[in-house]
């Protein structure tokens, strides 16, 4: 009798495992199909220069999205990353144009990220404002600050080559930003998957109550995640201004929505429902391939915006229907 009872249960478990496996890799499969489709259907897609182009295009986005991933892992959402990137991308050019040396300019940009991250973290963990609201408001503040700082104009002229090379240079034909992006991915992956710090960030996001009752100081890791998020946004902002050759008051705005889309797509992979660095990297590739492919086909940017919106909805729908995901 026990065998008769056991058999269907094993079947059900097997089916569930198969379903989970399919879910885990379905996004990767779609990505592969997209890639093959564009390769066959679009003339200039599968060329070395275009593939390097994609890599360059997703670099800054990936860096922003990695920061968001730290926040998501701790179950905090940082909606100020777009304007934060803009702020860092203004501060450095402003200082450089005023004649300050490059290390000072870079550190000032990163310092701004650190400061904004700290304010976000304190608002969320000490004052008790939900991160969604606190960082949304912070984004609005930074938007205003960016226009005050720049007077609404682009900051350019006199940016040293050593700065511009960060965004425009190539080593062995490969964009410098791509190296920086890959380094950031590797570092973030290591921290999240192979250190106690990363494990604790996931613990706090996975079950705050359980983490705290295990003696983990939950508040600290939520704070750290928000600070890291802001710092990565600052790095992306610096690279963006180097790429553009100027500081633009409204640069970086698109990174928020694109970054969220990237993380959501990533959450359908590997550990469905959890934001992981590897998932985010492939999520960025997904967005990069679609944008690039649609561009080559000649579709307008507003069509791309529609496609992106649909992708976000599909990704979140897949994740929330198959896991117990709670975003807020």
């Amino acid at each position, binding site marked *: 009798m026990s065998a008769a009872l056991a058999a269907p249960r094993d079947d059900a*478990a097997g089916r569930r495992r198969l379903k989970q496996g399919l879910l885990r890799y379905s996004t990767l499969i779609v990505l592969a199909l997209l890639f093959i489709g564009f390769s066959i259907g679009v003339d200039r897609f599968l060329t070395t220069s275009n593939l390097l182009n994609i890599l360059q295009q997703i670099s800054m986005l990936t860096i922003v999205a990695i920061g968001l991933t730290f926040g998501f892992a701790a179950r905090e959402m940082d909606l100020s990353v777009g304007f934060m990137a803009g702020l860092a991308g203004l501060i450095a050019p402003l200082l450089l144009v005023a004649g300050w040396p490059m290390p000072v300019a870079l550190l000032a940009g990163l310092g701004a990220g650190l400061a904004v991250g700290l304010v976000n973290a304190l608002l969320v963990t000490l004052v008790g404002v939900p991160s969604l609201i606190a960082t949304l408001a912070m984004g609005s503040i930074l938007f205003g600050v960016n226009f005050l700082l720049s007077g609404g104009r682009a900051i350019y002229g006199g940016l040293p080559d050593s700065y511009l090379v960060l965004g425009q240079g190539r080593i062995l034909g490969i964009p410098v930003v791509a190296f920086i992006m890959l380094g950031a991915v590797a570092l973030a992956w290591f921290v999240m998957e192979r*250190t106690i710090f990363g*494990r604790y960030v996931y613990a706090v996001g996975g*079950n705050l109550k*359980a983490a705290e*009752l295990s*003696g983990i100081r939950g508040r600290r890791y939520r704070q750290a995640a928000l600070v890291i998020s802001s710092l990565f946004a600052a790095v992306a902002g610096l690279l963006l201004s180097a790429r553009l050759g100027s500081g633009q008051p409204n640069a970086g705005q698109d990174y928020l929505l694109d970054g969220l889309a990237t993380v959501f797509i990533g959450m359908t992979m590997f550990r469905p429902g959890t934001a992981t660095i590897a998932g985010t990297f492939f999520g960025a590739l997904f967005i990069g391939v679609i944008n690039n492919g649609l561009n080559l086909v000649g579709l307008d940017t507003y069509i791309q915006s529609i496609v992106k919106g649909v992708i976000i909805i599909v990704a979140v729908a897949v994740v929330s229907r198959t896991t117990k995901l709670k975003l807020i």
Partner: protein
Amino acid sequence: MAIILSDIVMDYPGTRALDRVGVEFRDDEVHGLIGENGAGKTTLVSILGGSRLATAGRMTLDGEEVRLTDAGDALARGIAHVSQEGSLVPGLTAAENILLGAEPRRLGAIVDRRALSRQARELLTRWFPDVEIDLDAPVESLPYADQKIVEIVRALRGSVRILILDEPTATLPAREKERLWAIVRRLPTQGVGVVLISHFLSEILALSDRITVLRDGRLVETFSAAGADEARLVRLMLQRGQTGGAVDAPRGAVDTAVPPVIEVSDWQTADATAGHFAVRPGEIVGLIGLTGSGHFAFARSLYDAPDRIGGAMRFAGEEVADVSAAAMRRRGVAFVPDHRMIHSLVADWSVRENLAMVHPEAGALSALGILRPAREGREARRVMGRLAVKASSPEQIVTELSGGNKQKISIGKWLYGAEDRYRLMIFVEPTEGVDIGAKREIHQLMKDLARAGCAVVVASSDLIEIADLATRVVSFAGGHAIGELHWPNFSEQSFIAAMAGARS
């Protein structure tokens, strides 16, 4: 009117919440319904109120068999349910809440505010002529008792004959309770029977005409409240009549010359107080009490007491100022909480990751905090072997395990990388939802820990478990530690007497 439920069975996946329960509710009585958490009270009234459909059983209303498929259906037949959580809409006035969904309108669309105010007032005075409530005030600004009365008046809007009140006084301050009691007592004289669920036994005794006791999903007894006393209620709620096999097993002697590991005095938190409490190495101290009597809250406050109001703690001879999880863990206190999926485990993590939650450094390159999965896997396997965890591998997701194995992981977190590290281990409901085999193994583990010199505190609602394990028992009632029992004076009777408030 009388409604008779017979042979009601309610099955949830894996558990039977109600097992052939039969009870009669009438419109001329207050019917008290009591039982410990999990006894099936709420399930029974949700079947009566139409919000749940019984797996099996019959319901007859004045002799006619009925089938209630939803709350609206029950309401149409005169059965209304005021749930524990409250269903008022803040921001609306009391009058608007009373007539919610049935507002008088002009021209079919515009709410007639004057008529609304008047009709609400009429409803209130019809039922409770001597109750004064400002019906035009925002409902959240009213005293809690008045808010409850507003809810009751709304429930009485139709032609209601049976009113279910689930823990109506749970959120009320003491001085407001009597206001509500008067209301409840009056209803049967107006032709509305009350089914009253409450954890306050004195309240049940004072208000009820008849009382029904449920235990473990079964009917214990229905009897007239006249002549009943609290001790009898407690006995009926708890007594399982089982004989614990190990109750008679002698306990290891505790060396009273050894100073206590932990000692608290004049301990006071929001939910529990204790004059003096100490545990020595090798002791297993059981904490018992009815639901909400403070024994769980007290056990937890020894590890994490953010709501501490007063009292002093000494741990291993040192004065302790910071009683927080992180600080107490560092001092050598382990805490295995109840509700493991809420308080202890990360649902989508593997067994290995869950085990490594407290001491990840045991699977890491020291100092740098760099995790080595192979090393983690080895340590996880050791703990899984020590606790006989049945899982396909350390990489299995924890939610796929059975209740007993999940509980072993919840305990194993404190053994991973830390065998012998803990001087005090606190358990709350250590075998909640655990099969009998795993239960025995967990009990053995706790005894082994004590024998190895660990001080153990166990708070449990399973009296047999306490009788099997403990060397000493402290009973709680109304949030206070009130009595102490020593082995071999352990029996269900002595425990129940201690929990009912008799000082020993």
